[in-house]
């Protein structure tokens, strides 16, 4: 492989994309991206997560040269982007924000526009149309496509030239559950069968959990976690979220509220996140000793959404809005 190689203690990792101390701000405002060090392993499906306004799209635009870089470094395929822009873009397929296509042209004509630039074989147009399930659209204008078809056309354009890296910003936006499954399966297939590395940003955490191998979580322009999804889940899986069904919730909050991050759900339930097994026992003992009858304790492991929410919780304990 031609790409940059990094070493860890146990394994040899090839990074297809790296940013070093990448920062960006618009005008005199607050920085949108702050000292971002991303490492995207080759062959991974890298989920780039963050709340609204966290700097995800700005980062992706910087990576594609759509915004002039202000400080830091972007290396793609082990080459600095600013010095090898055309060479690098030849190996990248992208779809940023919403899919871009020409509404007055058919799907085939839209792909022909890009085929002329990439100079890939014309037969590739039919291949990608078939791959995304648009081979029967004929001369129908793209403006008359459904949202899912438009999204698939955007992905077809990104895939046309057989890229080594796909950069997709919210590719399942606006799709129905069936459309989401189709796109997810297609991306997994591309990754496993053709070895395409995929960098994908999305706010649909449930979807991402089923798709990605690696995760980068960004909040207020800063990277708060980067690593494999398995590691993140297993690390967070050592703690539980427990719910107690009890009488006297107000009194229970007085007893355990100051020690743990307890929340009163209603008159009969309190919930505490981030507890170990021992802590669950300790809380329970304190409630019993205080004479509060406990009727039921339910525990749950965290899913990606609660892990994510924990990570982006700011110092005041409030959560950033998490929706697009």
């Amino acid at each position: 492989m031609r790409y940059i190689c990094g070493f860890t203690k146990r394994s040899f990792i090839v990074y297809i994309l790296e940013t070093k101390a990448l920062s960006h701000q618009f005008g005199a405002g607050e920085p949108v991206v702050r000292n971002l060090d991303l490492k995207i392993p080759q062959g991974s499906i890298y989920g780039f997560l963050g709340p609204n306004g966290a700097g995800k799209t700005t980062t992706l635009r910087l990576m594609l040269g759509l915004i002039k870089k202000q400080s830091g470094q972007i290396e793609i395929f082990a080459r600095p982007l600013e010095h090898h822009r055309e060479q690098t873009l030849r190996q990248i397929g992208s779809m940023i924000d919403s899919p871009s296509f020409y509404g007055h042209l058919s799907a085939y004509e839209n792909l022909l526009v890009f085929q002329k630039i990439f100079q890939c074989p014309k037969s590739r147009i039919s291949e990608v149309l078939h791959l995304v399930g648009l081979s029967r659209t004929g001369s129908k204008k793209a403006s008359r496509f459904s949202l899912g078809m438009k999204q698939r056309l955007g992905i077809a354009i990104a895939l046309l030239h057989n890229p080594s890296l796909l950069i997709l910003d919210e590719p399942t936006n606006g799709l129905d559950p069936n459309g989401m499954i189709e796109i997810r399966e297609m991306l997994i297939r591309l990754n496993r069968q053709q070895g395409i590395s995929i960098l994908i940003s999305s706010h649909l955490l449930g979807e991402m959990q089923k798709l990605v191998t690696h995760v980068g979580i960004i909040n207020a322009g800063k990277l708060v976690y980067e690593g494999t999804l398995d590691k993140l889940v297993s690390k967070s899986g050592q703690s539980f979220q427990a719910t107690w069904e009890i009488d006297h919730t107000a009194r229970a909050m007085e007893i355990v509220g100051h020690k743990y991050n307890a929340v009163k759900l209603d008159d009969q339930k309190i919930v505490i996140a981030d507890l170990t097994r021992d802590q669950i026992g300790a809380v329970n003992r304190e409630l019993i000793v205080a004479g509060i009858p406990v009727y039921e304790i339910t525990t749950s492991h965290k899913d990606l959404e609660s892990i994510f929410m924990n990570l982006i919780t700011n110092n005041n304990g409030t959560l950033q809005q998490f929706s697009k």
Partner: protein
Amino acid sequence: MVLFNSFQSEWIKKKNSSASWLTIIGAFFIPLIILTKRILDPQTLAEQNASAKIWHMLYNQCWQYMSVFVLPMGIILTASLITQLEFRNNAWKQVHTTPQSFTVLFLAKFCITLTMLVQFFLLFNLGIVLTGILPALIFPNVPFPKQDFPFQPFLAGNAKFFLYSLPILSLQYLLSLHIRNFMVPIGVGFAMVIASLIAVSWKYGYLLPYTYCSKQFLLNDNRIDPDVNIYAWSTGYFVLFTTLNFLLYISRKSRG
């Protein structure tokens, strides 16, 4: 080769677009009106076609209407529509992530607008020719134009109008490329055309490039300064606007 590939790509984009339809409809608009007028006056039709100056007469009639208003407005609308293909389809970001230098991208799109202008001139001249020939095909008593087709004067005349169109095209392309709201370049262009109608016979009217097409028919007017070299002004404005446009384009901080 890279530029040619990019040009081909841009050419496909304009297929069936409003800009391409406007070029065709705009080119035939004035010849169609002149033809209709001629057909509705059958008494002079035969006499005109038998005249030794039929082509000059048709050329002057068509270009007089075309040069004052239709040509500048056509250029204004076409330049806007070409760039709107990217703005309206939110496609700049996709175009700017293709492996092409910004110079190639700029030139390819600009070449498309120039080619469309050439196409417009060719179709317009075809319209003039049809205006002379069609009545002879429709009416048995109308002869084919007696005068041999004056290729050289037609070519020279067209070349002048083409040169006068270049500053308008380059300025409108500049405005359309950098302003997302298409009403702004169209509004500015329209205001310039109106201003040019007022300024055409003014002493310093040559400062406004939109007056050049209209000036062609006022060259014998004593209010037009014969010492002003319109060809040089036209070329100068074209080079200035195109260079400025290119510099603004390559120094953009955000590209969709």
